[in-house]
């Protein structure tokens, strides 16, 4: 069986505009959650989010290009550029672009465009809708824009599974590289849906916190919306090794499952099934895993259920594995969440530092694992799991191994 290396990483979120800056923030336990600044808040009850701040699109795109790009595609392209540059690959050489898949997850797609045009039509009663509305808001727009920027002509599409979109997308890209269908993939997730109607819709579900995100602790009051993107370059392992590429980590396996139960309530069984499948697929034992980047939304329902699922799969090793939720810092970026969290997973593998669960106050008896509260911890990390569990009961877990 072929092996798969990660040779490029790029990301943008409330913690910074590149992956390095975000990893430093996570390691320092710094939170990107704050008062909402990019949209009017007068109609909002929840006035906090983890927004991408200090962002000027014109720094990255000229105005002619920008007219085609919803914020969700801008984030994906910015992350892709960083990842591709780091990989050192030139897709126009040696038919590499022809052998590259481009699979990008998003929960919502071009929500800002949708919102602006709806406002124009219904609110302003302006009957003329912008002609580029469709191509900006379609959920596959980000994937398409990346293929066009780099002339990637292999399999390309978007993956949609709410909060697990990025992990499902990356799992699919990994399978394609491992199976030999392609030799490279540009993959990850992107989301930009902090608009007034979306925040109102989240408020209505009554799962969003009004103070901050405090996963796994007793005082947690829910999730905090985030945004951003994470994009990675996957490459057939021998190819990466032979060309002397810097291998950030080995993409070792993935596990997916559906709860087929409740549309919102998580299931311990479903989560456990995906965790166990990821270990099996990666040919790893629970005892090999030193860190789990948890889904850890900070909702009353997720955190105990996820903890029980980990305990069920890890058995006697459950007390030894470090578990943290970096959503406490970059918020819940929905379809980008798994990709931004892979930056944390890779950082932990490469530097032997576990990013903490920030904003942690008191332990909850329902959540009884080692959550690395508030302060990062030095620990040799051989392999990690990164969890995403979506509304609708769609679960996807990724397993990475350290490259020595």
């Amino acid at each position: 069986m072929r092996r798969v290396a990660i040779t490029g990483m790029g990301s943008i979120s409330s913690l910074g505009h590149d992956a390095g800056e975000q990893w430093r923030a996570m390691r320092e336990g710094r939170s990107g959650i704050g008062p909402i600044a990019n949209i009017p808040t007068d109609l909002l009850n929840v006035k906090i989010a983890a927004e991408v701040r200090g962002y000027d699109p014109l720094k990255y795109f000229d105005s002619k290009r920008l007219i085609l790009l919803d914020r969700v595609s801008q984030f994906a392209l910015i992350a892709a550029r960083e990842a591709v540059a780091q990989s050192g690959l030139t897709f126009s050489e040696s038919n590499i672009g022809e052998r590259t898949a481009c699979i990008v997850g998003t929960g919502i797609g071009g929500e800002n465009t949708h919102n602006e045009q709806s406002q124009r039509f219904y609110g302003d009663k302006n009957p003329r809708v912008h002609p580029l509305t469709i191509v900006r808001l379609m959920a596959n727009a980000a994937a398409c824009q990346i293929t066009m920027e780099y002339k990637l002509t292999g399999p390309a599409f978007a993956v949609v599974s709410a909060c697990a979109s990025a992990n499902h997308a990356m799992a699919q890209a990994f399978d394609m590289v491992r199976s030999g269908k392609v030799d490279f993939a540009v993959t990850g997730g992107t989301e930009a849906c902090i608009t007034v109607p979306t925040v109102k819709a989240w408020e209505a579900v009554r799962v969003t916190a009004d103070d901050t995100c405090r996963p796994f602790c007793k005082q947690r009051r829910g999730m905090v919306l985030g945004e951003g993107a994470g994009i990675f370059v996957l490459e057939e392992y021998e190819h990466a090794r032979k060309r002397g590429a810097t291998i950030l980590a080995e993409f070792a396996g993935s596990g997916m499952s559906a709860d087929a139960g409740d549309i919102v309530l998580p299931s311990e069984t479903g989560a456990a099934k995906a965790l166990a499948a990821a270990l099996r697929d990666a040919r790893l034992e629970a005892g090999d895993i030193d860190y789990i980047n948890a889904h850890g939304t900070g909702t009353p329902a997720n955190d105990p259920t996820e903890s029980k699922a980990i305990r069920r799969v890890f058995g006697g090793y459950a007390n030894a594995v470090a578990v943290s939720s970096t959503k406490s810092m970059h918020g819940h970026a929905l379809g980008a969440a798994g990709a931004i969290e892979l930056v944390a997973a890779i950082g932990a593998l490469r530097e032997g530092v576990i990013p903490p669960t920030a904003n942690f106050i008191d332990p909850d008896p329902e959540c009884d694992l080692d959550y690395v509260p508030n302060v990062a911890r030095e620990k040799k990390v051989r392999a990690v799991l990164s969890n995403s569990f979506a509304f609708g009961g769609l679960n996807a877990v990724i397993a990475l191994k350290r490259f020595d």
Partner: protein
Amino acid sequence: MSSVQDTVFSIISKEAGIDIAKITPESTLKDLEIQSLDAVQIIFEIEDHYKITLPDRDPNFDTESVKGLVDAVEKLLAEKQAASPPA
């Protein structure tokens, strides 16, 4: 039985698909086996009917029991009336 209580009972019955005769003021949503998503729909329908906003996990409001919901609605309606200028 107050009219608010009648309305809250009928919303719960309709949204959760349970017989209205089974609902008492003392019932909690849990007793009535109302799932979380039905519970947020009930709260939404109550809010939409009365044009009020029920607080989310506020210790001063009990939104777990039927009586708690009725009391909360009555309190918010009274506040709303007090806040609006006399006709």
